[in-house]
């Protein structure tokens, strides 16, 4: 057995270590996920004015600050007793802000953080011996996705066309957020009871203009099928089967003209292969090789899956208020109440209603002491402060991370675009997940995670236009009155979705309206959680176990020094490790005024 450790896993937010045991066949037999940094975040909110949370907690993460800020605003709405009266137009403004943040974050992940792995030299080694098609595919991978300052065999490689084009779009999306959020990162407009800024008609015009510019990028680079056609036939398809059939028909048309037709191995964007179409066809063995008859694929559907469907759930808290419900919203996010619904989807793809009271957390493998299996709002955390005990090399039975292990009814849960789209029964992703399951694959894998992220970007972009042009009324009310006295001896729960998954903030206050406890439970804590007290590994750990470390199912033999599939699997969750680790409580289990961690 060989230990292969990636530390740090770069091109993510924060600092993550993935340590694996790999057998002689190059298959991962054990995996540990370690969050490496401890900041002590919630503690600074203790005894403070709770209203500061919406600005302060977004400093947990500069990639998804809007999400933290809005999770905090939701918790504060309830804390101040105004959740049922936040004006509809404030809710729409929050939706717009979040939608832009999600799209910007997804685009950054797809093109800047995740995409460069497609230019890994392992794919050159596998693909180019396969003749003209393989060589042409490698040329596209390198030409589109290579990152900056990239070198191969000592030669400088220019940054990829898609990579380069995506950076100005990210910039543009942040400008759009600034129009209604002041600045970005760390927009400033979330506040209990509403929104600090009332967007004007001119702002709506600007947002529409930004929208069409971003959509120009999408149609030039990402998706060559006309956007409306895509939405109509996937997201709005009559059934999961018809959505998958539409995708396959589109791809088959491209394959026919590019391989069999006169177009001889032309996989360029000009030939109709947007980045999404290209990855949809070549990323998957089932879609690309089995269903489309391609001579090769990256086989990402063979990586990052769950071998035991009884040990994993998919969890969504739900996000985006429904403008048609008018003023106010339900802080419990009941099923169907939000545009992206809450829900639990089992490993066998069965939907169940979500209930926030069923969350517990384990610390048996984390650098903390204390009780097990407590609800986040009751949690306690005593960090191990002995430097000699902070070690990452003592195996899977030891304490090995600063993240806790959240569980839902005792189950590890994957969170993120895939979970959200399964919960909302989005036809394309649901159809693909079923197809993988029916053909003996894990429905969740590196490929479906990435397809879900791409599809979610499209769906939210589609809805964003409606919020901007139809739902927002610049003459509407933007806030209701709040003052600090309304937050005495109170509690609040903010359930929301960050781009990378379910995000919850819990807050409670004392008789002076000062914060007693403040606690975020964040997406990467779910995805990169360690083992729990029953020894069940977290989602990313499960996804690594059983994965072959090298490109295309180790087709060129085992090379421990370039474990590209560890990189793909880890990054497919879009980790945000600054979020995953927050705080500690030094003062003991039951001391008053203690902040807790997840």
């Amino acid at each position, binding site marked *: 057995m*060989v*230990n*292969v*450790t990636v*530390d*740090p896993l*770069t*091109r993510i*937010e*924060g*600092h993550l*270590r993935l340590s694996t045991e790999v057998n002689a066949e190059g298959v991962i037999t054990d995996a540990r996920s370690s969050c*490496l*940094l*401890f*900041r*002590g*975040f919630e503690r*600074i909110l*203790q005894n403070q*004015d709770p*209203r*500061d949370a919406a600005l302060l907690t977004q*400093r947990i*993460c*500069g*990639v998804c*600050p809007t999400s933290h800020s809005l999770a905090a605003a939701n918790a504060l709405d309830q804390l101040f007793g105004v959740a049922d009266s936040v004006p509809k137009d404030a809710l729409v403004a929050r939706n717009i802000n979040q939608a832009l943040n999600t799209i910007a974050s997804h685009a*950054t992940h797809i093109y*800047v953080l995740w995409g460069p792995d497609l230019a890994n030299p392992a794919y050159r080694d596998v693909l180019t011996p396969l003749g003209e098609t393989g060589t042409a595919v490698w040329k596209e991978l390198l030409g589109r996705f290579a*990152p*900056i*300052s*990239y*070198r191969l065999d000592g030669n400088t490689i220019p*940054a990829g066309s898609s990579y380069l084009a995506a950076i*100005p779009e990210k910039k543009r999306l942040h*400008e759009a957020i*600034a*129009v209604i959020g*002041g*600045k970005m*990162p*760390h927009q*400033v407009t979330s*506040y209990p*009871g509403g*929104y*600090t*800024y009332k967007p004007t008609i001119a702002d709506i015009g600007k947002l529409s203009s930004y929208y069409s510019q971003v959509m120009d990028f999408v149609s030039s680079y990402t998706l060559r099928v006309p956007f409306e056609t895509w939405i109509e036939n996937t997201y709005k398809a009559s059934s999961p089967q018809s959505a998958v059939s539409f995708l396959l028909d589109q791809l088959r048309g491209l394959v026919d003209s590019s391989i069999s037709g006169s177009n001889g191995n032309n996989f360029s964007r000009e030939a109709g292969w947007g980045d999404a179409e290209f990855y949809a066809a070549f990323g998957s063995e089932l879609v690309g090789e089995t269903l489309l008859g391609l001579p090769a694929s990256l086989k990402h559907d063979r990586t990052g899956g769950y071998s035991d469907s009884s040990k994993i759930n998919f969890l969504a808290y739900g996000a985006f208020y429904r403008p048609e419900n008018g003023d106010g919203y339900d802080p419990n996010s009941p099923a169907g109440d939000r545009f992206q619904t809450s829900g639990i989807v089992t490993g066998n793809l069965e939907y169940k209603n979500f209930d926030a009271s069923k969350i517990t957390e384990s610390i048996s493998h984390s650098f903390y002491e204390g009780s097990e299996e407590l609800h986040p709002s009751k949690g306690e955390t005593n960090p191990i402060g002995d*430097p000699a005990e*902070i070690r*990452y*090399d003592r195996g899977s039975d030891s304490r090995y991370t600063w993240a806790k292990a959240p569980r839902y009814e005792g189950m590890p849960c994957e969170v993120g675009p895939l979970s959200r789209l399964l919960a909302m029964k989005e036809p394309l992703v649901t159809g693909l997940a079923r197809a993988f399951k029916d053909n003996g694959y894990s429905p969740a894998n590196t490929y479906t995670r990435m397809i879900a992220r791409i599809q979610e970007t499209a769906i939210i972009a589609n809805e964003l236009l409606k919020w901007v042009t139809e739902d927002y009324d610049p003459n509407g009310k933007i806030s209701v009155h709040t003052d600090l006295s309304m937050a005495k001896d109170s509690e609040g729960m903010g359930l929301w979705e960050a781009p990378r998954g379910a995000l919850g903030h819990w807050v409670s206050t004392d008789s002076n309206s000062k914060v007693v406890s403040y606690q975020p439970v964040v997406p990467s804590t779910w995805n990169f959680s360690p083992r729990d007290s029953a020894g069940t590994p977290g989602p990313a750990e499960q996804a690594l176990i059983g994965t072959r470390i090298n490109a295309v199912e180790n087709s060129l033999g085992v090379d421990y*020094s370039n474990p590209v599939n560890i990189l793909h699997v880890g990054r497919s969750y879009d980790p945000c490790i*600054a979020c995953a680790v927050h*705080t*500690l409580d*030094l*003062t003991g289990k039951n001391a008053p005024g203690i902040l807790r961690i997840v």
Partner: protein
Amino acid sequence: MNKNTSDISVKTEKPDFFKMDRRTFLKTACLLGASAFLGTYRTEIVRALETAETKLVWLHGAECTGCTESLLNGGDPNVLSALQALDAKLAYHETLLAGQGIFVDGQPANTTELNSEILVDELIEEGNYILIVEGAIPNGPEGSGRFFMVGNRTFKELFAKAAGNADAILAVGTCAAYGGINSANSAIAQLTDYRGVAFTKNDSSGGMLQELGVNKPVINIPGCPAHPDWILLTLSAVILGKIRIPEDFPSVLDGYGRPKAYFSEDVHDECPRHDYYERDEFDTEIGGYKCLFKLGCKGKRANADCSIRKWNGGTSMCVQAGSPCIACVEPGFPDSSRPFYTQGSGGFDGRESDDIKGDDGKGDGVDSYDGTSSESDSYDTDSRRDSYYRIGDD
């Protein structure tokens, strides 16, 4: 040449940037902004570049990646072309480069092309780079630095190595400059013991460099996040030799190590809501359009040119979007500004404290601000602007 003709030619031609003295250059470049400066003067910049290539090594400490996100929002048309114009090579950056740390049975594997740990060690050993730090550095627990490990070592150790061989250091963002939110007052602040690069809060003897006994020139570019113009224009000035390191520091940087070019203005003075302040018209509920002073705005004590420069390509800024300035560029942030929505919080009430303005460079020493209690801090940034170097503005 006829005088009138000469006047016309001045108006129609670009000023010759590179013959300008340092102060004029900094002021002019600052007013133009990074996009216009790097875009308009591309050819001149190429000609003025003295060295072939400037290597940048960017380390991520305890941070949120917001400053990297902010950097990606800068430049013309983007940050990559801006760096190209400056012939600056981003030799190491965790979020943007291809590599990652790869260890096989504990030993570094592969090469610099895919293994970022081998790459960063090699770059540090070669020397001849500008070190850029994003994020604070934990010293705890017990001075071990083990609250943050990366690549089988503490970040403190990596930082020590990288700082020791750097030509100069840019501390980008309030966390790297002063500890920022990581160093905020709490019951655990002593345990985690977070440090900025050359300061912790306003204490110029409490930075990680001082803890390590390493002496390097440091420029602080605070902000939560730092504005991309502040980062790119400072880099431009350093690379183009318009800030000589360290000879020019006393005249170019303020008492907290910040370039005066961007951190001398008050957010208040050019605030888009300034007229309401003058007319005593204040918002007392969010969602309005008047002065935010009574909602806790700290614009009068925030030394940054946000009101002129604005954010995200000149789109907006905090106060414009109805949210009080929280003075995120100040060394005591966030304690010196909170509670954010309370007038006079952080021990400062700008209405009564106008008399502390009128900077004459005679500071009373940074140590008088202990940064330990948000209740009792008295905070007057202006009078301390030059105290770090104990030298007045030239």
